[in-house]
């Protein structure tokens, strides 16, 4: 098998990503996102497992008010399915498809697994407060000059820098 190809120039990639976002705004009137799809997935699962619960708990009631219908028939869910396909195609053409658990050689797989799980949980939790994540709040918010989006962006990256020192052993 050939070696993985090198990554695209970041400025070119950024420009293409910006165009993707711009076209999305022009066509749909909304930006890109990711954590919203996670939220829809959670609602769909809870709805299936404990339907009575979703009818009484406030979070789900507010979700249904905002998104009537099947939670999986949602714009962001379709977009995320697209992301999986797009990333897979990219991995395929650039020889990067490989099942691996990637981590720094200095830490054990166990540590990386715990880190990924905790980090993911924090991100998912924080994205609810932020009303979106790096894509939905920060990037898409920046494109439309949203004050909240930019504040969230500064908080995400500022927070990450503030905590980076304490978790350096995970990465360096």
């Amino acid at each position, binding site marked *: 098998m050939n070696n993985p190809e090198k990554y695209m120039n970041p400025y070119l990639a*950024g420009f293409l990503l910006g165009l993707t976002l711009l076209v999305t705004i022009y066509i*749909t009137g909304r930006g890109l996102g990711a954590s919203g799809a996670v939220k829809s997935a959670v609602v769909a699962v809870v709805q299936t497992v404990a339907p009575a619960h979703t009818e009484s708990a406030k979070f789900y009631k507010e979700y249904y008010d905002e998104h009537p219908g099947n939670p999986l028939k949602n714009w962001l869910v379709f977009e995320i399915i697209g*992301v999986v396909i797009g990333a897979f195609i990219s991995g395929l053409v650039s020889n990067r498809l490989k099942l691996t658990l990637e981590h720094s050689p200095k830490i054990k797989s166990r540590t990386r697994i715990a880190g990924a799980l905790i980090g*993911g*949980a924090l991100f998912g939790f924080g994205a609810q407060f932020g009303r979106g994540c790096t894509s939905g*709040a920060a990037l898409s918010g920046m494109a439309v000059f949203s004050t909240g989006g930019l*504040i969230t962006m500064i908080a995400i990256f500022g927070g990450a820098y503030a905590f980076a020192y304490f978790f350096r052993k995970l*990465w360096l």
Partner: protein
Amino acid sequence: MGPLVPDVIGNQLNLVVALFVGIAFGFVLEQAGFSTSKKLVGLFYGYDFTVLRVFMTAGVTAMIGVVALDHFGLLDISQILINPTFLWSAIVGGIIMGLGFVIGGFCPGTSVCAAAIGKIDAMIFIAGSLLGVLVFAEGYPMFEGLYKAANWGNVQIFNTLGMSQSLFAFLLTAMAVGAFWGVTVIEAKVNGKMDPEYKSKKLYYGLTILAGVIALSAFVMPDRKDELMGSIQDKGFVTNYNVNEMTSDELAFRIMDSDQKLQIFDLRAQKEFDSLALPFSARYDIQNFFDKETGKKLSYRNMKNVFVANDEYTEKQGAVLAKELGFHDIYVLKGGLNGFRKDILNFEQPGEPKNRRETDTYRFRNEAKTTIPVLIKEYKQKQAPKESSKPKRKLVGC
């Protein structure tokens, strides 16, 4: 005029659009190297600033694109989702996400992208994020206070900071370009060598200049709205502008004739409109002509769009704006509603008609004087149950 959803592209087709947008999004993220946590966290340890480069370039590109589309009237900004601002929730959420970023090495979008090419750590991150959302959902009553505190609405940053949109776009672009140079220096120091990707000074000087030109162009594209609103404040410009006129008699005749091709745009204040609204009329603020909804109404074919206000000059300001925005078949009511009141509603015959023409006119006006008030009353009753606020597209963020 964008956005194309829901008028041109229906809500079902929009889901197909979402799929294709996602494919482009995922492809670019993966090509940029966002499918490995090693590259993502490099940002926080100074050895790889790819994330900053891609993120800021994308943000600035889309932002300037939005400014340009708005400027050329291709996109109705009032129809776009501006992420709402809940101050404390945004800050706390952002910091928690930042912590999640350095511990987990991904963000939700990049984790999906990495999982798609087989990264097991990314799959675990996704499982974690499902748990995180679940915790929030189940503990919602506890978090709701913070979640909904300090609601600033859908504010935009240049308003918050009190500067123009163009100035903010320029400053942000300048900051981004400055950051690109700065981080390249930091990166070279941390890694002990320059990444060959960024060695070509010429290319990057060129790109810097290009970014400068594009950022400056934000100033040449002042909000089109401001520009046009400015031009209709120019008295000479408005007075000399050629606009079709419709006389009080013709308007009265068309109203009595129930002319289906008549649309009246009433520019007076809501209070005045409520006390006397002509049949076929609806109230508009001059600002409304920039909206997609109003634009649609103004572009119906073969309609006569009559602008009314108390005085003719105000009508003309509205008409000039509409014509500058490219709408056709615009008329102003000659003499304004003041004239219409005098000629029709409160018509007093000045004396015996002196000729045939005056006879006809007087007869018509006397008839209109009794008929139109009845039509006005009927119209008011018909309108009453209608809500005055227009339905807004409901859009909810990420």
